[in-house]
């Protein structure tokens, strides 16, 4: 058998570029100063649901308001996570586990307070009719939630009628569509036309395997989303007041 050393044949750029800082060190710099909040944020970062609840209990016992804990500890911890993910210091499963922990924490706070905080905004997500590929959509939903958005997840194989009905009912700030097949992504055009017909000019971010920028550019409301992390980025941009044209300019990278 022939074994040839890799020198000159390939470069493991990931090894070459590896950050010397551990994720824990990087996170440590970002935690809140307050001891109680910090413990909760750390538990979020570790994705340890039980520790999150314990931390919240301790903070509430120390007199903190459950609803403000959401913003001051849970969200802060989650922001550490999403920031380090964006920087490439931690990986997606960490985000997923932290998001699970955060959501559980929020439920706990809401139960304690007997009331709900106002979310940053609402997003409807779906997978096109006839398409079973849904893991990309699930990542999109998770990252939106991780960034503080409320997500209405219509699931996979969703007929156009159902999408339109839901948008009318929920009035989200943004709609996302995922399709992985050439034949199913065609439904996005119809969603676009039906929205316009109904007088709804809302950003409709579309992504997934077979979907591409050129295709998405063929319908007015469409903005192409290349990777799941673009979904919360676009939601943030909408909150920042960006127009449809500006969104396209930012997210159309090819």
């Amino acid at each position, binding site marked *: 058998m*022939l074994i040839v050393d890799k020198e000159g044949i390939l470069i493991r750029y990931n090894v070459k570029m590896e950050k010397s800082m551990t994720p824990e060190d990087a996170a440590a710099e970002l935690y809140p100063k307050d001891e109680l909040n910090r413990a909760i944020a750390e538990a979020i970062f570790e994705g340890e649901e039980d520790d999150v609840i314990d931390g919240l209990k301790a903070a509430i016992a120390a007199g903190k308001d459950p609803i403000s804990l959401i913003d001051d500890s849970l969200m802060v911890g989650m922001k550490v996570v999403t920031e380090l993910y964006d920087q490439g210091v931690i990986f*997606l499963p960490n985000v997923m586990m932290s998001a699970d922990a955060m959501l559980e924490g929020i439920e706990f706070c809401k139960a304690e307070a007997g009331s709900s905080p106002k979310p940053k905004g609402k997003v409807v997500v779906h997978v096109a009719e006839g398409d*079973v590929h*849904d893991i990309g959509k699930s990542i999109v939903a998770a990252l939106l939630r991780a960034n503080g958005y409320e997500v209405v997840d219509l699931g996979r194989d969703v007929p156009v009628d159902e999408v339109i009905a839901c948008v009318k009912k929920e009035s989200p700030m943004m709609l996302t569509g995922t399709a992985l097949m050439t034949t199913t992504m065609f439904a996005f055009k119809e969603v676009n036309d039906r929205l316009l017909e109904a007088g709804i000019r809302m950003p409709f971010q579309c992504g997934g395997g077979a979907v591409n920028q050129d295709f998405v550019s063929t319908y007015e409301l469409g903005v192409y989303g290349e990777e799941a992390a673009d979904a919360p980025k676009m939601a943030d941009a909408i909150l920042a007041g960006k127009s449809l044209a500006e969104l396209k300019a930012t997210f159309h990278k090819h």
Partner: protein
Amino acid sequence: MAVKKFTTMAYNNADEMVFGRAKSPVKAGLDLEIGAGYTTAEVNYAPRPEAGETKEKLVNEYQRITRDIMARMVQVGFPSVVLETEHVQQMTNNPTWGAEVAHAQKTIMEEYHEEYGIKCALRHTPGDIREDKDFLQLRGDKYNVVMESFEAVADAGADLLSIESMGGKEIFDYAVLRNDIPGMLYAIGVLGSMDMEYLWQGIAKVAQQKNVTPAGDTDCAQANTAMFIAGGLLDKNLAHTLAIIARSLAGARTLSGYEAGATGPGKDCGYENIIIKGITGMPMAFEGKTSTCAHSDVMGNLIMQCCDLWSNESVEYHAEFGGTTVQCWSESLSYDCALMNTALKSGNEKILRDLLMASDRFRDPQSYILAYDNAFKVGQAIVKDGNDIYLRAKNAATECCNLLTGAEGLEMTKFETNALNKAAAELAALTSDSEKFMSDCMEKYKAEVKVFKPENYAL
């Protein structure tokens, strides 16, 4: 059909394995023999977006695709070709649609075979439509539609029957995004294998009745999802060490189809096929450096090492300067095959195989394990406990970890190494009692994954 578990390897050693030759070649279609001393391109394609609107448009689209490919093959002088049609949903849900497409394609292929003598075969891969909107529905009505679809395409001219089955996917999707190794093992190794055994007995029966080939499955739904999420060297969505553990598990799972009657050629996107070839001696399809139209990977050359069919995975049908996409890619694939066939004919197949393998061996933990020597070891770990689907999957994952831990010449990132060490520890801590593992998992995932329905696996 009877299920016969593999407990030994088909080859005495890894070095016996080469491209274009399998211990048990498969005759199929019009004069083709797969794994009988030569390699053949397998061309895949997806209809243009607007083609799905009506049945007529769809049939027409596949006719154009088929004609384009066959024409290019004779223009450049290639002796053989396989076409694969992966059904879009409509074609499986309406078995007559799939059948009409198969018939239209086969008619054109027969014309070319008659006029030029080109050897060819048609693979059809119905969609695994066994699910409702929210849940998998692996048994019952939907299963029957899938079987009808297989019957219809076989009657209409499909020579090779395949599917990308989905058993275990509901647990896997949850587990892979949470670095949950036992969950991945349960999803792929246990649930996936159980479903395949059930499903493939059905497919093998249809194939026998219709006198066509039950070709084989792939763990696309799980191992490929992991591979795609893992992505390139700089992506940060999943440790590549975990993706290759999923792939090793897939070796144990995909084997189940061949135990239930499939004979090969295994389906192109099964990167685990190198393990399967070592165990079964059946011919296998692969895809890699000439399927960049469909996806990027980090083992494009290496994965060609022992292919019998060489595929582009899929490309949307549209125009390029050099012709339509299916013409461009079928030509590139066929040149690759011409190179391999020249090596086979001149007795140089092992050196070419080794060059392919060596060029990617250290590119990634995934390529390292799929190098034929290491893949063979994973295969050995599987057949050692071939009769126990849990143990053999656990063995595969463990062997994968061991090989990576002891790897020489492979540099890994700290992140990859950490994920590996954690996985290895978790695997080591697992019970060696299948029943206990099954019941533990049942309890855990019933609670955590709300879409998990044990009745899908007759559990």
